């Protein structure tokens, strides 16, 4: 057994720095590269793309990335775990296989595909058997939005990926797998941890939580003394050095920018946290109140002491459903009286929408530059503000009404308060809203499928 393995984070979301994974592969020694592409809203975006093109629906950036780094990965035996498959992992794996062959790597690596997360075709069966898939936030039964559902995927954990790694996969592509599983799977595979070793599984899960958002653990978006964080232009993404006993060190490659420090790790630990005593994944329930952090030198933080409890009997389900339309329009008002002008323009716009008889579920007005982020906590806007952006959004079930709204923004330039600009982008676009419905399902209902094939 190896004494330690190095797992590098290469992507914190779909749209993250394209060259970060390349830097991780070439900037120093690593054993694994984990790539997290899926935020909650990402599945619904991919769903829309697959509806337009049945071959799409996965993180397209992943394919050119593989073209760039696969030769290095094969040469250095770096293995990749990625939830790049989105709503179409098989299509994604095929595209990667094509890339491998075109690079002359056919027959030199195996690709693992994890499926079984897609339960769209089984929803009616579940509902008819009394599995209600109630919304975890609101308690509403799924039947309320049944006809509007566009996708339904279970969050699979680390074990199907472990099976793919055990089967020799160099690249493991999943659909909706947990972000933390992408890091936990390699550690389980290397160190042979048992499925009921809750403390160690929790340690691997917390290691995954720390690096799943990429540079957000290594100096990016870090409030603590942010002005002293060096060279973010060349920020090094985080790396976990995991040991068989469940302890690990968070670090980054030598010669890169950013910082790995106790404050940077603490900020990432609390990110998107619920009840810290029970961070629930398919693999375990990790206790964030047990984490101990120790400064282990420059850009090195040692993490130990982690405790966990048995996994629950449920898996989380991510369901997306069509929830109407929205559009957001903006205009910029300049000094003097920028805020007063923007407010007046908003009043005029709302009066016109009213006169047109348009009905929306919500109209939201914000004044960017005055109080869009902190609301009344920002205090009364100064009369001397150099400029204010008026930002008005509407949301409703009727597409035509939202469309009509988008045509009422530009007229304000010639028919409203003076000192206005910022309409170069044209009319706002109407967006279909694909909303997120979190639910739980008994684990016994779900079977992940793992396939490992020669490229």
């Amino acid at each position: 057994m190896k004494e330690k393995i190095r797992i590098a984070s290469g992507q914190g979301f779909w749209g993250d720095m394209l060259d970060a994974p390349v830097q991780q592969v070439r900037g120093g020694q690593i054993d694994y590269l984990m790539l997290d592409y899926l935020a909650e809203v990402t599945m619904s975006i991919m769903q829309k793309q697959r509806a337009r093109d049945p071959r799409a629906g996965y993180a397209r950036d992943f394919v050119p990335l593989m073209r760039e780094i696969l030769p290095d990965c094969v040469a250095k035996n770096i293995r990749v775990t990625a939830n790049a498959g989105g709503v179409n992992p098989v299509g994604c794996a095929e595209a990667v296989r094509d890339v491998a062959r075109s690079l002359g790597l056919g027959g030199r690596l195996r690709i693992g595909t994890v499926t079984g997360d897609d339960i769209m075709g089984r929803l009616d069966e579940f509902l008819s058997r009394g599995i209600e898939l109630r919304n975890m936030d609101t308690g509403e039964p799924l039947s309320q939005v049944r006809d509007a559902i566009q996708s339904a995927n279970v969050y699979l954990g680390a074990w199907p990926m472990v099976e793919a790694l055990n089967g020799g996969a160099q690249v493991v592509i999943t659909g909706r797998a947990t972000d933390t599983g992408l890091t936990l799977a390699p550690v389980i595979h290397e160190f042979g941890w048992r499925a009921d070793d809750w403390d160690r599984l929790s340690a691997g899960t917390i290691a995954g939580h720390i690096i799943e958002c990429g540079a957000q653990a290594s100096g990016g978006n870090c409030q603590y003394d942010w002005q002293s964080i060096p060279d973010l232009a060349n920020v090094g993404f985080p790396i976990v050095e995991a040991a068989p006993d469940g302890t690990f060190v968070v670090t980054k490659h030598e010669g890169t920018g950013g910082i790995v420090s106790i404050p940077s790790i603490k900020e990432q630990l609390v990110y998107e946290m619920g009840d810290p005593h029970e961070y629930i994944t398919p693999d375990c329930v990790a206790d964030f109140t047990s984490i101990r952090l120790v400064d282990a030198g420059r850009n090195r933080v040692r993490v130990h002491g982690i405790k966990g409890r048995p996994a629950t009997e449920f898996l989380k389900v991510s369901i997306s459903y069509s929830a109407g339309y929205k559009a957001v329009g903006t205009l910029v008002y300049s000094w003097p009286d920028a805020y007063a002008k923007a407010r007046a323009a908003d009043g005029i716009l709302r009066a016109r929408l009213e006169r047109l008889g348009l009905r929306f579920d919500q109209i939201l007005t914000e004044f960017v530059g005055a109080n869009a982020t902190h609301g009344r906590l920002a205090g009364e806007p100064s009369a001397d503000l150099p400029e204010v952006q008026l930002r008005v959004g509407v949301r409703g079930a009727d597409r035509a009404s939202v469309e009509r709204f988008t045509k009422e923004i530009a007229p304000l330039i010639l028919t409203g308060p003076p000192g206005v600009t910022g309409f170069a982008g044209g009319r706002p676009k109407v967006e279909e809203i694909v909303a997120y419905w979190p639910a739980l399902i008994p684990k016994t209902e779900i079977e992940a499928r793992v396939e490992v094939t020669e490229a």
Partner: protein
Amino acid sequence: MKIQLTKLAHARSGDKGDTANVGLIALREDYYPLLVREVTAARVKEHFAGVCRGAVERFELANLGALNFLLHESLGGGGTLSLMTDAQGKTFSTALLRMLIDVPDEEARVLGLGQ
């Protein structure tokens, strides 16, 4: 004396659906008890009046010198439903750091929090 949280803590915030979470981390270990005492769920609910329409829950992480707050019904429906600029609650962290708390002068002096 009144002290703004930005002198005592750093923070990061994010979202889960329509709930914003704010992790508030003491800048120094000896500031943590002050945060525990003063930055209660009720104070945070009051601070975010008009923004947070649901309950505020608070969790303690003494091991990290941190408090975690969940602000329910705060993100205009959350995710893709929200029309807000900050639909993901990313700036709730700095909004919380605006809070002023009361610290007895003597305690402030001991903690080195003079004017």
